[in-house]
């Protein structure tokens, strides 16, 4: 299948996404913000529709829309401190409302491939974008590793340890928004957040340390994307679906393994 250029591109793109999405997802899940991915992807959909209508490249408009939404969430989070998820629901409604209006406005036939992902869509521009974003995300996680760990575990104490939590939070929100906008090319808007969460869920079942957790999440992400893309190619299915189902199967296998292991080690 690698004799096809579009498959080479899809694989490069897919592997980068497999590393980016679970990495940002890891921090979101552990901070109990896993719904942020869902929210931002709905807003990204309105960005895509806006791009199609105005003839801008939809990935760029999706990026702009989701960054604005991410900053909005950060702002509202302070306003509704005790109902943090309310701010997400507000932004999600705004995103999906705007998207449906924009889609019905005009020339948006291509939107389906953005919803479920597509192998044929990937352009050189996308690959360049995903590589740049990948570098930024990995540098961020590597350089700010300890600050991110501390903030994820206990944000208040991290602030009192002198970590600039507010700017790091804002920067991280922007990275999440960019991850979603770029990942939707392959995985699709509706399934981006699943790729951010399922590998992490599987990793949390077996990881004993924070570092191990990140590494497992990335490994599971990679396996899901490679298996998912291959199946998608041979069976001609939407890649988003096959990737996410692969991630789900990994999660189920780990749950079952743990179940049987506890049966064996626990005397009846």
């Amino acid at each position, binding site marked *: 299948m690698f004799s096809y250029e579009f498959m080479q591109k899809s694989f490069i793109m897919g592997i980068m996404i497999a590393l980016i999405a679970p990495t940002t997802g890891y921090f979101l899940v552990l901070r*109990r913000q896993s719904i942020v991915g869902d929210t931002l992807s709905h807003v990204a959909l309105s960005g895509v529709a806006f791009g199609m209508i105005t003839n801008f490249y939809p990935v760029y408009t999706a990026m702009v829309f989701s960054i604005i939404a991410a900053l909005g969430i950060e702002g509202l989070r302070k306003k509704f401190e005790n109902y943090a998820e309310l701010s997400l629901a507000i932004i999600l409604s705004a995103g999906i409302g705007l998207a449906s209006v924009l889609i019905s406005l005009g020339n948006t036939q291509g939107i389906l491939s953005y919803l479920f992902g597509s192998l044929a869509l990937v352009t050189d521009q996308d690959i360049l974008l995903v590589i740049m974003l990948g570098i930024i995300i990995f540098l961020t996680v590597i350089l700010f*590793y300890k600050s991110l760990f501390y903030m994820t*575990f*206990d944000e208040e104490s991290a*602030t*009192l*340890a002198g970590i600039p939590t507010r700017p790091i939070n804002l920067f991280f929100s922007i990275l999440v928004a960019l991850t979603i906008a770029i990942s939707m090319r392959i995985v699709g808007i509706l399934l981006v957040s699943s790729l951010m969460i399922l590998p992490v869920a599987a990793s949390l079942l077996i990881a004993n340390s*924070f570092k191990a*957790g990140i590494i497992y999440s990335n490994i599971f992400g990679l396996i899901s994307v490679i298996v998912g893309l291959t199946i998608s190619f041979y069976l001609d299915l939407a890649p988003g679906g096959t990737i996410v189902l692969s991630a789900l199967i990994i999660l189920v296998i780990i749950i079952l393994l743990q179940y049987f292991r506890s049966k064996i080690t626990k005397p009846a």
Partner: protein
Amino acid sequence: MDKAIVKLENVSFSYGKNKVLEDVNFSIEEGDFVGIIGANGSAKTTLLKLMVGLLEPDKGAVYLMGKAIKDFKDYKSIGYISQNVRHFNPMFPATVKEVVGANLNTSRNFFERSRKKEEEKIYKALEIVEMGQFMDKKIGKLSGGQKQRVFIARALINKPKILFMDEPLVGVDLNSQDKFYSLMEKLNKEYNITLVMVSHDIGVITEKVNRILCLSRGRVYDHKPDQTICFDMLKEVFGNKMNILIHRH
């Protein structure tokens, strides 16, 4: 020299229109073991957050170690254990070593391995709370009392002068509570750490601390060590339905 390590002057604070603290004045001196008590919703946590600078007062001034709280940057000299640490997901993937080490070299990157010296520091902090053998255990697998000790170790690792604790004894069994108080005594007397602790359990805390700050309707009432707690005050703080029982075993 002024020995006040924490000082609040005419501090008021409100959440929106709801004024929770009004014109609060007190100071905490070096070596004190202070208990902050009050009914639910009497702004005990708010008061603690104001003292460390996590919240800013609407009016008045807060001083920490002689510095206005805005200019305070000597983060290593304070330890803080928030209420939130109890609510973390038990599946959170972190070892005791990672949690305690979080307070050291916060700028370390992913690939830098912790140096030997650092591991020793972590171990020493854990030894103070008698948790040395749990270094590599996953934090979620420890009991409530053990977790509490790990968080104390994390706060102790930079040798703070003052330790702030928000309800440290919720979810901790009675046996561990005794251990907790003897640990507090050790920190206070041997390590000269000033202790400030929020609690809603007035029974035990009044016997252990040397000062009580009572919060009621936005005001703070200060009880010096030689005073016994005024029962009328307690009735006001906890409401009139309270019966006060005193046991002396």
